């Protein structure tokens, strides 16, 4: 059963990227889509806690202090991402968004002074190389499109 949940999880995360691309193709406004999406997620969360976690909504104030600003950062990330895929491909843009998982790793090193080992350095270096390669892919794509759109004699 645990492995089924794991496959459901990866399918859901993948569908998130696919829905974002469909929303872009249908001309949906990034701000509207992500505001409503967070509204839906909030509703699902409240229903889940109400029915499966004993309707325990009491939390210390510090949880509010942590959750609210980071939720704001996240929705901004979602809106800007949806605005950005208008200019790029979902296959590469989605990777950039996932690579942002390196930020908490960097934050842990900077704020909590977690030890920097070779693996962490490799993760960050590979992420930088990956984003550079994706940007080069985008440039090559544009050059190809420009050549394709040139008048016949100019090619």
């Amino acid at each position, binding site marked *: 059963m645990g*492995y089924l949940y*794991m496959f459901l999880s*990866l399918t*859901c995360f*993948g*569908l*998130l990227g696919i*829905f974002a*691309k469909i*929303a872009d193709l249908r001309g949906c*406004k990034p*701000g*509207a*889509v*992500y505001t*409503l*999406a967070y509204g*839906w997620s*909030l509703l*699902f*969360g*409240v229903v889940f806690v109400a029915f499966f976690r004993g309707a325990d909504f009491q*939390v*210390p104030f*510090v*949880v509010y202090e942590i*959750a*609210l*600003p*980071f*939720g*704001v950062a*996240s*929705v*901004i*990330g*979602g809106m*800007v*991402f949806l605005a*950005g895929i208008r*200019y790029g*491909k*979902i*296959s590469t843009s989605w*990777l*950039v*968004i*996932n*690579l942002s998982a390196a*930020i908490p790793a960097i934050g842990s090193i900077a704020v909590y002074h977690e030890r920097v080992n070779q*693996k962490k350095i490799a993760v960050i270096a*590979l*992420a930088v190389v990956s*984003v550079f*390669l994706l940007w*080069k*892919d*985008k440039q*090559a794509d*544009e050059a190809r499109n420009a050549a394709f759109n040139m008048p016949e004699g100019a090619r």
Partner: protein
Amino acid sequence: MNRSSAWLRLMAVAFVANGLGPFGLKIMAEKGLSETYHYQYLILWYAGGLAFGLIWFLATRGRFRGQELVMSFGIGMASFGGQLFSLLALERNVPGYVVFPMTTGGNLFLVAAAGVFLFRERVGAYGIAGILTGILSLILLSLG
């Protein structure tokens, strides 16, 4: 500004903002709160995002369309479902070193495949190399 510069700038902002989002979980863990209040934290996290989105949307006098309601339902369900099923898999004793690389690498392959086969995107040699390097980076990261 050309399209690749626009894409890079927007992705850079999305990269930082989206990456900051989950850092709250690290703070929760450091304060010993994440075990007890994980789901409540998630609710408040979404509430923060919703509040900001509504303020921004009202300030810009935007309007919601039916299409956006449907798409956002899909995104909201996928976002909450992805987080919930990961937690449930961990609660069912699937090791974290299996759950995190599988969900990360798997979802990237799924979206890359959808980009190529469903949306007819052309990914060149640089793109393929970038995707593989990125997946390797994320798998290393999720192994802790």
